């Protein structure tokens, strides 16, 4: 470290903690006996949003997808936009938990649990949209290869079938990763809980964890294996989501740049969402000593890098439209920039390309409110990106006689905002009953802290 000529990296967690103090700090809230009123007020707000979602879904089930704004030619509307948006958000969790683990980035430790939970809940929200879009939700199993009496397999040449497998695998592996990561902490909660009911519930899910050396040995092997399994998923899931578009022949969709550009966009939006959630969490629970400026700085840097890849994607789309000489592609590009949805396009460029450039400044990366605003801008920008991709390509395709406009109905909005309610409800429950920062991994960091403290520059 002495050989570095710039300022040394600050420690992953603030000095001054011992094993007992971190354990106490991180398990305090899940073990509180009386739920604080502030939590209840927040929970009620997001729960009302969830009820709005339930209402919208019930009406949808009764009346059908005609209540949405979709029609020919824009048959893919909010449902697909929101599906891609939510799935993308999930990607940060997998990147943090799997890839950063394999690269031994110890700073991931304080944020991985929360990011994994976020992934899981985002995938749950995402998976709802294709089901709702079916119109006949109870027939969803048609897309699975089950021993049917139709004599048909699902259409394996359709990316929508690939989607089912990609997303189901993703959901399952994310759930396993999150749960396996929780086991030692669940045992800690079991041992520290005082009410017998809580003891039994935490104990049930702790699967008899006794902290023995043999447990830990097997545990580390399993965790590493799962990380290896999850790593390709960071790339594969959004690649397949992008193929939903790229495999078609619609101008603006039929392009080979989609997979890498979608994956980068997914990680971009995922980190924006992690920051959007973790900044308030950190200040509410006073986790400044475990989620430090170093974390914010690193996450902001990843956002900046993936944001630049996304910007390159936008540039290339338009370059290829011009370079290919394809009339339809060229019209699509021009229509995006100057057509009826041009305002949204330029807003997207502002949110996704211009504003994230502020992250070049260290001050923005480490100032909470600035970083929060940039993250919000990216969240919104990435949603707009999917809106632009889905709507502008479909609303004016090859035949001018079939051109039409798309606008969402209030049911679209209620469903979308409703899934945000579902997402936040799950997060509220997660924060209330489980440690939102991995206790045993932070304990490990505390154990290693003396070595870092020995380097004078760090202090």
């Amino acid at each position, binding site marked *: 470290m002495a050989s570095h000529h710039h300022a040394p990296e600050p420690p992953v967690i603030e000095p001054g903690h011992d094993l007992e103090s971190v354990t106490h700090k991180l398990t305090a809230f899940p073990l509180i006996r009386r739920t604080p009123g502030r939590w209840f007020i927040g929970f009620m707000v997001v729960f009302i949003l969830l009820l709005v979602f339930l209402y919208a879904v019930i009406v949808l089930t009764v009346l059908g997808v005609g209540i949405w704004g979709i029609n020919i030619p824009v048959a893919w509307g909010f449902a697909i936009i929101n599906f891609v948006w939510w799935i993308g958000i999930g990607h940060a969790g997998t990147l943090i938990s799997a890839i950063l683990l394999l690269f031994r980035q110890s700073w991931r430790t304080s944020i991985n649990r929360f990011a994994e939970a976020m992934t899981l809940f985002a995938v749950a929200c995402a998976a709802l949209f294709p089901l709702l879009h079916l119109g006949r939700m109870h027939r969803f199993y048609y897309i699975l290869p*089950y021993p049917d009496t139709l004599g048909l397999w699902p259409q394996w040449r359709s990316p929508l079938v690939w989607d089912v497998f990609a997303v189901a695998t993703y959901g399952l592996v994310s759930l396993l990763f999150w749960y396996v990561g929780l086991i030692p902490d669940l045992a800690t909660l079991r041992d520290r809980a005082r009410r017998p009911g809580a003891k039994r519930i935490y104990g049930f899910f702790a699967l008899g964890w006794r902290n023995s050396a043999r447990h830990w040995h097997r545990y580390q092997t399993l965790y590493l294996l799962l990380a290896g399994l999850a790593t390709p998923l960071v790339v594969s899931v959004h690649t397949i989501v992008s193929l939903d578009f790229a495999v078609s022949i619609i101008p603006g969709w039929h392009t080979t740049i989609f997979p890498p550009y979608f994956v980068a966009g997914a990680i971009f939006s995922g980190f924006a969402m992690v920051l959007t959630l973790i900044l308030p969490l950190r200040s509410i629970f006073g986790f400044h000593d475990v989620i430090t400026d170093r974390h914010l700085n690193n996450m902001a840097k990843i956002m900046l890098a993936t944001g630049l890849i996304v910007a390159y994607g936008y540039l290339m789309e338009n370059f290829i439209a011009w370079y290919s000489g394809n009339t339809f592609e060229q019209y699509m590009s021009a229509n995006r920039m100057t057509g009826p949805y041009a305002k949204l396009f330029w807003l997207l460029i502002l949110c996704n390309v211009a504003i994230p450039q502020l992250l070049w400044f260290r001050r923005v990366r480490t100032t909470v409110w600035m970083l929060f605003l940039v993250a919000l801008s990216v969240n919104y920008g990435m949603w707009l990106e999917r809106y632009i991709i889905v709507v502008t390509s479909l609303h004016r395709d090859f035949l001018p006689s079939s051109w039409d406009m798309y606008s969402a109905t209030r049911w679209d909005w209620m469903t979308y905002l409703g899934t945000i309610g579902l997402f936040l409800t799950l997060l509220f429950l997660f924060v209330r009953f489980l440690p939102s920062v991995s206790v045993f991994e932070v304990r490990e960091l505390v154990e290693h802290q003396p070595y870092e403290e020995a380097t004078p520059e760090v202090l």
Partner: protein
Amino acid sequence: MAQVFYPSANTIARVTLMSLPIAIIVIVIAVRTASESDYVTGVNFAVDQPVEFSHEHHVAGLGIDCRYCHTSVEDSPFAGIPPTETCMTCHSQIWSDAPMLQPVRTSWETGQPLRWNRVHDLPDFAFFDHSIHIARGVGCVTCHGRVDQMPLMWKSQTLFMQWCLDCHRDPYPHIRPREAVFDMNWTPADNPEAQVALQAAHANIRTEGLTNCSACHR
């Protein structure tokens, strides 16, 4: 510290975990078996009718041709259910007092048609045309079974989509010469040379067209 669970909890947990995949397999097999059962498909269950009409008696006993009653089977999608007049061509002369035929006579007097209950009821989203199947040599027996041996009418096939596709994917084992279509006794096994000849004659049938979704779902 007191233990949260008894040692038996381990056994319960293991048994539960192991029975989970078994339960899934059992459920899938059970649902599949149930959906194939005669009870669900209606195969081999005689359908109640306003008159206990016996195909066995009229076809095997009297030798009446299928087309005497199902008149439109050769040139329309619908084979045709005979009007009361068709029954009365004979039954105004024979068995004209039989109590069993009272609904037929009532229908004749009032002009209200008999309401027969459908035995082979395809879903409305499946397009089916009798005439093309007759023209291409699908025998009545192939889909409707030996009606000459049915005192009351029942389904002999499930009408599953899989069953339709079995023939659409590879029709040759199921077709016969045009003149044998209404023959109750003709079987492909007894007439291998006819099958070979048919195969040669129909060598240009494009089976991929037969398995397009829009062949049946229009």
